[in-house]
């Protein structure tokens, strides 16, 4: 499976990577929205996990950009946002799943499974 992890925190990126990586998986990471779109240009991810509040480009714009380039990608928005309107907006713009920070490894795995089911 091809995965892209977008998060500005190195710690979160590595945690997600550790949780999701299985033998045959190919995981790429990006540190912000602009970076993510650059990766998506050459890498066709099936699953994208992304933080909704990131520097440089906001998560919502990035989300739309990825879906425009890769309409088949399944996107899991991960966010610590208490800002509910943004979460609704993310689902409206095409996010397939939503996971609230802080999260456990189990919760993340469950969301990814739900996304691919």
């Amino acid at each position, binding site marked *: 499976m091809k995965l892209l992890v977008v998060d500005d925190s190195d710690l979160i990126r590595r945690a997600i990577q550790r949780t999701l990586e299985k033998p045959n998986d190919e995981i790429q990471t990006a540190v912000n929205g602009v970076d993510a779109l650059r990766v998506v240009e050459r890498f066709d991810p099936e699953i994208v996990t992304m933080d909704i509040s990131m520097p440089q480009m906001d998560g919502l714009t990035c989300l739309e950009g990825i879906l425009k380039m890769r309409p088949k990608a399944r996107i899991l928005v991960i966010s610590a946002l208490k800002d509910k309107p943004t979460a*609704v*907006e*993310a*689902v*409206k713009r095409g996010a397939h*799943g*939503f996971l*609230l920070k802080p999260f456990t490894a189990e919760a993340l795995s469950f969301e990814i499974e739900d996304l691919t089911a």
Partner: protein
Amino acid sequence: MKDLLRPVTLAAAPLGGLLSLAGAILLWSLARGSGGAGWTWAGLFLALIGLALVAGSLFLTARARERALAVQLASVEHESAQLAGHAHDLEVARRESDVVLNSVRGHLMLIDPSFFIQSRYSNELEEVFHQKENGNENLLNVFQRLLSDRMFKTARDYLGLLFDDSKKERTVLKVNPLDEIEVDVSTPGGPPTLKHLHFDFRRIVEGGVISRVLVTVEDVTERTTLERQLRDSENQKVRQFELLIGILHVEPRGLDGFVQLANGELARVDEALKASDFTSATVGQTALLRQRLDLVLQRVHNIKGNAQLLRLEHFEIKAQEFEQKVIDLKYRGALGGDDFLALVIALADFRSDLDNLQTLRVKLAGIQRAVEIREEVGDDLMTDLRALTATIAKKLGKEVRIDSHGFDSRSLPPEQRFIVKDVLIQLTRNSLAHGIETPAERLAAKKPTEASIDIHPAADTEPGTFAFTFRDDGRGLDAERIKKRALEVGLLAPERANDVEDSEIASFIFARGFSTADQSSMESGRGMGMNVIKERVVDEGGGEITVNSEIGSFCEFSFVLPLGATFLAAAR
């Protein structure tokens, strides 16, 4: 229904019987009409048969009818029982739904894909929304009344997502923006009423499409309020704990002294702040108010100094913040009731922390008594003063040593001991901030890099007094600089600038609000320190202060403090 059917059966039976009887009479009259006795008997016999037939036919008719009727009746009864059963079931269902609608914690309603509320809804929904007639109304209209513009837009989008087949219900439910929301349900002209509502949504899928959405609304105001209270009390606990940690290093006696002093100072602050002064503050009265604020500033400054001495960081910061509030007001153009309120709140807050400190101190003293037996280790005022000096010196990058040979404040009565303590705190802070140079400056002036503060009892003291001297080997008082500042703040009239005596110049440093520091900091620059000393020693203690200084070399303050009648009586 049985009663309705019966008259019909009774009417039908005599009709059959009459027809049979008519047949029998006809046969009998035919037999008579044929003549002769043989014929008569035969006729009678026939008539009897006829009668029997009539009776039999009557009997048969009645039986058949009865059977048919019984069947009919049974079927009717069955049907009617069934109908009654249905009615009963419906009644039960209706009652159940009423019970569900009226007793569930949440209030239910169904909305269609255009967000119209369907007619069935629970009674209290009206109460929840503070609005009559929710049936056949659009939920969006309700939202528009209750929510802010931004939340309304989000709620509208969200209702759209609920009816959007392409979005997974699980995901949509996870981002519910209305799971807890504060709404304004005030009626025009009524009191402002805020409620916390919890909305829950479930899709109803019929024939593969989302036909309706079940909405549950719950008024969670009470729960939210309780949660908030709980949070507040948790915060209060954390604050107490921090306070406790902060005082662990302080001697219980030192804490007692601090609480006593701070409460006294706050009482004076309270006296100085009069609500009426603020509410009626006209332009002319503002000057008077500023004087009052100076008084407040002085008191709070003293609390800060004492907190610093005991390293009660919490109170040091608190006093600093209080001071800042007063200073902000002092430089504001107009003063009003709200400004007064801000100070009163700060004051109440400070008091409450002091109360907490007192409570903790009592608890702590118990613990300390239980775990250790203390020895007297000299004058703890000097120990505290050394610690204070070390802290400030480190902050300012200066090197300072305190010599206090023969100085002991332990024999003083509490009142005088407090004065001596306040004086020493302010003087030490002043020396460190203004008088004592940095090691580099001292080196350039051919002085040892380590400065010295010398505190010693005066050699020849009058009986019934306590006299001591405080001396630092810093840069001394700069008469020109003090003069310049005195001219700036209006303490010295310009025409007298050239013929003012040195002794008068020295007195300027005790004036309220006088400071030569350009910027205020935690250590200096409020211009309150020396003024506090003068008030404590001269005004309150009835003592004397003498200043002696040489520019570039030293600054010395000598104090004589009468010990008061109580002490003298005790000493005799």
